[in-house]
């Protein structure tokens, strides 16, 4: 697929070669944004809700160690085993060890972006453990052997024909059949078998409650529950920032999550786990994987308020026209672009620049992360640490010299306009990226400054 394209501009260029596809992708995601707008206007106190959620998350960030310890103590008292993983690899090993202790070689997984981040599936596969993703969108991309393109709608980049063809090969559906109901029914039957036979289930955690040691898992399909309530072993993975202080804080977040993500007042199922089922073993893995580092970055720590709703992706005009895969990161779009550089600045130096800084993301974020401000600040970090391409850096130095010396600027400007007028081909050619799909502006005969001197200067 697209896994060997390294940076966003290259990937986006390829994505844009099929304009009707881009139109479809853009319209589909814009539709989700519109659904969101419709439901939030039904809640007059919506902006107050966002402010509350933001305040609660600030409290969490500033008390994170205490809250994590409180959470752990309560969970253990409730009979849950709690593990801590410094990085993705340790997380994967913990999962493997739990499964090995039970001699389990097959697991069913509901949606967890954290496990994408940790690359859990390939790790377990290399150890001979088979994982089936039960969320329909995740199952689709799993069968296609590609990563999800959106954190909430993993297969949003695919058309029903693509899924029909895929299911024909893997699930034996009729060739050419692409009716979503037919395909979903096929997936229901195929995955029902999985739920009934697998002894281990892995889920994510949408919210972990410090005061009770319990956690909430939100789905529309019911797949997390089908897996967890039938399995002998339930493993729940959480990014450490998924904490909220008290049980009734859920009232705020459950009102924001569905509306922001898909324009639903709430997901079909918001499932709250506090104790294992009788005879069942329950585990929680608390994962750091760079989060404690981000917590120390004063300009960027607020990205840890994120509740993974995806609203920023739906509204982002760049994401809609480049697709999640162009961001080469488990979490794509605006939020991905402020999280990823913390993990690897070199690899992700392109991401904060994959934006016009329009600010739409900041305004849809249910927890009021200052996303576009952080994008700008990451650019400064990347620029001063030398992660911006050399040619750009040189260009900027030249620009700085010209613009700080008025006479030089005026001279360069007039020379530029003369060249454009008398030798347009010098500018209007394939070396000029602007010119590829746009006409250059017409060079005027005088600059404003020249006009002012002629007409107004006393």
């Amino acid at each position, binding site marked *: 697929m697209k896994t060997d394209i390294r940076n966003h501009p290259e990937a986006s260029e390829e994505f844009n070669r099929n304009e009707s596809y881009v139109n479809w992708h853009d319209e589909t995601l814009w539709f*989700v944004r519109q659904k969101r707008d419709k439901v939030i206007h039904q*809640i007059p*106190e919506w902006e107050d*809700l966002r402010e509350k959620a933001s*305040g*609660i998350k*600030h*409290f969490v960030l*500033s008390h*994170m*160690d205490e809250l*994590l*310890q409180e959470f752990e103590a309560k969970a253990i008292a409730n009979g849950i085993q709690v593990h*801590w993983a*410094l990085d993705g690899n340790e997380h994967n090993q913990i999962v493997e060890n739990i499964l090995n202790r039970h001699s389990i070689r097959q697991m069913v997984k509901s949606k967890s972006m954290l496990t994408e981040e940790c690359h859990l599936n390939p790790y377990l596969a290399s150890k001979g453990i088979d994982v089936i993703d*039960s*969320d*329909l969108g995740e199952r689709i991309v799993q069968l296609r052997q590609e990563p999800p393109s959106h954190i909430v*709608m993993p*297969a949003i980049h*695919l058309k*029903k024909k693509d*899924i029909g063809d895929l299911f024909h090969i893997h699930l034996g559906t009729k060739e050419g059949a692409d009716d*979503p109901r037919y395909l*979903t*029914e096929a*997936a*229901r039957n195929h995955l029902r078998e999985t*739920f009934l036979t697998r002894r281990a289930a892995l889920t994510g955690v949408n919210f972990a409650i410090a005061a009770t040691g*319990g956690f909430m898992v939100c789905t*529309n*399909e*019911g*797949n997390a*529950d*089908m897996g967890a*309530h*039938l399995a002998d072993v339930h493993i729940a993975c959480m990014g*450490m920032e998924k904490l909220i*202080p008290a*049980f*009734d804080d*859920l*009232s705020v977040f*459950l*009102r924001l999550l569905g509306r922001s993500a898909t324009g639903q*007042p*709430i997901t*079909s*199922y918001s*499932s709250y786990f*506090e*104790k294992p*089922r009788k005879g069942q073993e329950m585990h929680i893995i608390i994962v*750091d994987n760079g989060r*404690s*580092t981000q*917590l*120390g970055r004063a300009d960027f*720590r607020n990205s840890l308020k994120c509740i993974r709703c995806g609203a920023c992706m739906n509204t982002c005009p760049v994401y809609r026209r480049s697709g999640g895969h162009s961001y080469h990161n488990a979490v794509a779009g605006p939020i991905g672009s402020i999280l990823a550089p913390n993990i690897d600045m070199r690899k992700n130096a392109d991401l904060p620049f994959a934006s016009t800084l329009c600010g739409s993301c900041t305004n849809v974020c249910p927890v009021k992360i200052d996303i576009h401000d952080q994008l700008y600040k990451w650019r400064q970090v990347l620029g001063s640490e030398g992660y911006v391409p050399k040619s750009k850096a040189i260009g900027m130095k030249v620009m700085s010299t010209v613009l700080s010396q008025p006479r030089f600027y005026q001279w360069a400007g007039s020379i530029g306009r003369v060249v454009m007028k008398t030798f347009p081909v010098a500018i209007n050619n394939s070396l000029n990226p602007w010119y590829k799909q746009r006409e250059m502006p017409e060079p005027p005969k005088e600059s404003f400054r020249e006009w002012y001197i002629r007409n107004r200067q006393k």
Partner: protein
Amino acid sequence: MTSREIILNKIKANKPAATQHPGPLTNAIRYENALETFKIMLANIEGKTFEVSSWEEIASILNVEYPDLPNKATDIPQLASWADFSLKHEDPHLLEQINVAVIQGKVAVAENAAIWVTEEGMTHRVLPFITQYLAIVVPANNLVNNMHDAFEQIATGNYGWGAFISGPSKTADIEQSLVIGAHGARALCVFLLAE
């Protein structure tokens, strides 16, 4: 040092200055007619509301909604005669055959048609999900406007497991086409029981 210690130490060193919890939201929405709002919200997500005043009524409506379907199960004692499938198994996998299940709900929420259910009185947690068709019975006088009101009631509980269930199972993962009945129940009936 264990990973736990490393992580906690790093958090202690890196966390920002302490802020205060902002406190509860006080201006949450109140509807002119919470019942009507609940019914509309549930209808929007393809659920059905029935206002009833007896358990017999519930049983007969279920027989109309799901005629000729065997394997009906419930933990609710008042509906024992309606059921024909026993839940008294150790192994929840055996519930795979169930077509219709009725469970008890505690609170219904108007703003999103969500109903809070818990494992109290429920033999198996998987019942609401493994059944093909689901019904929930809620006391009619326990319908609240919004989630904050709901949590005021339920926050004092001590739960093993609970859930807000809003409508039947669904997905829009295939080209944003809404399909009802993904892995969980294909349909939901809510009975608001006046006592």
